[in-house]
């Protein structure tokens, strides 16, 4: 496998009138061709900024201070206007949280899908595309306006549009958060199947750990603008190597065992205003040492992970609290 996307030491600040806040503080990540990667973290951890940066879709007040983002060997930030347009149109597919805001309310679904597919597609082609997204009765759906569809159906239309040109990478930002719990899994399954059929990569940005565990090959955990742990999803969820990942799992209600009280992470995530010269998680960490306040943990390889923690080996060896672990 070769890297499709490489994020190198990317630092992005949002400027407001009185101060600037770092949304990304030296984030490092690679997305391999043909893999599904989940990026998890609390709100404010920088996951949406990272997702949008791949398509250079950041708002004007965002400023790149350092680092680069490489898509298929070319810098996204150095690309010209036409190159960025072609990147967004032909190479990336976007799926957002709410399908209703992604679709044009004034245009029939069939026409929107045709625009996304490009050229002059036959009606039968569009119908086939919708059918691949597991929408029954595609003729009726093509004639409909978005408001006439249910949330799940509308999200399937968005999925169909995101793969219509055989995009190499689909970026899904909380793709199922606005959907009903009972259909979330089916919509995710459709998305995963289509991705495999097209042998495209999928980047899921989410905080739903359980969903992510089932649909992603690898997981990247973000905290305070950095990627703090990356590894195969089953291993990361079961045997976290970063204390933050472990705390996240202990606080997740869907992993709660009967009669066991949840342990929320104490405190709140920090607001980063300058490059952190120590570990940003240290004030909330249960395994912290004085070193954590003195030196910034660089990302390094530990077994099958890439972790940014001085004591990753110790955390990994300590105990295995995982979401799927039966009670002892």
């Amino acid at each position, binding site marked *: 496998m070769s890297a499709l996307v490489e994020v190198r030491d990317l630092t992005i600040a949002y400027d407001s009138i009185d101060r600037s806040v770092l949304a990304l503080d030296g984030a490092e990540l690679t997305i391999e061709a043909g893999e599904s990667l989940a990026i998890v973290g609390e709100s404010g951890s920088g996951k949406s900024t990272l997702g949008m940066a791949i398509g250079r879709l950041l708002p004007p007040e965002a400023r790149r201070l350092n680092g680069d983002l490489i898509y298929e060997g070319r810098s996204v930030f150095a690309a010209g206007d036409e190159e960025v347009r072609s990147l967004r149109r032909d190479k990336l597919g976007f799926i957002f949280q709410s399908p209703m805001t992604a679709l044009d309310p004034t245009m029939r679904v069939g026409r929107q899908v045709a625009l996304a597919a490009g050229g002059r597609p036959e009606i039968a082609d569009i119908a086939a595309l919708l059918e691949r997204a597991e929408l029954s009765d595609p003729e009726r759906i093509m004639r409909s306006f978005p408001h006439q569809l249910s949330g799940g159906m509308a999200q399937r239309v968005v999925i169909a549009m995101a793969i219509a040109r055989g995009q190499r990478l689909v970026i899904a930002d909380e793709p199922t958060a606005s959907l009903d719990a009972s259909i979330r899994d089916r919509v995710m399954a459709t998305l995963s199947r289509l991705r495999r059929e097209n042998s495209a990569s999928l980047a899921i940005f989410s905080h739903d750990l359980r969903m992510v565990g089932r649909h992603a090959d690898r997981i990247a955990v973000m905290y305070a603008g950095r990627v703090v742990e990356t590894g195969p999803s089953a291993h990361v969820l079961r045997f976290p190597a970063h204390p933050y990942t472990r705390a996240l799992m202990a*606080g997740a*209600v869907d992993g*709660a065992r009967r009669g066991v009280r949840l342990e929320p992470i104490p405190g709140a995530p920090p607001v980063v205003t300058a490059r952190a010269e120590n570990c940003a998680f240290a004030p909330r960490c249960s395994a912290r040492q004085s070193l954590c306040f003195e030196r910034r943990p660089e990302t390094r390889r530990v077994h099958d992970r890439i972790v940014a923690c001085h004591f990753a080996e110790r955390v990994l060896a300590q105990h295995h609290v995982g979401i799927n672990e039966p009670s002892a």
Partner: protein
Amino acid sequence: MIAPVVSLSEVWVTYRGGLGRPGIDAVKGASLEISASETLGLVGESGCGKSTLGKVCLGLVRPSLGEMLFCGERFGHLRKRRGQLAVVLQFPEWALNPRIRCGRSVEEPLVVLGAHPAERRRRVQAMLESVGLDGGFAERFPGQLSGGQRQRVAIARALITEPRFIVFDEAVSALDVSVQAQVLNLILDLQTQHGFGALFISHDLAATRYLSRRIAVMREGEIVEIGSRDQFYDRPEHPYSRSLLDADS
């Protein structure tokens, strides 16, 4: 025997249709009881009538058929029930006026009840403390708080009159995983402390299971299963409950 805080027997709610259109039965013959210090979970897909049932329990919607009793009595006029009921919604922004300081928002229900100003200030301080916010938050505006802090303020406002019954309608759905855990633990602790009965409406079975002793599953306006929490950790009976559980795990 002490009467349950809320009891519904064979409640139907029909929303009238427009000209020439048939009405919709949002709730079809629902019966349930919620006692003091007990949380009943209510799960189901969107549009199944969960929120309508919540409104019936709050006395905001009159049943078209059937009976709703509050503490063993007929519900009567809403005005009579001031301070006895409360609701916490999905987005705390819906409960807090953005231009009023949080302390004042929490105090308001007491003003309506006509409590003495010194008494009000004391109780607001105590309540903010018990939801884990220090006194300084009273002077802040909702916009200066994080989502989890805002939801705590909304819960403080709901609890300030020491109501007997609270409806949590998707109260943790919009919160982050770690904040969710904080708020769920807060609800558990406050219930032990104040002994209110609660209806926890959610489409998130995991959160509901964590908080409730019993869980009711609703589908297309009907309660298809009511069972103990354990049943929902193991094996629910109704096939629909099973599909909800499978979708979730």
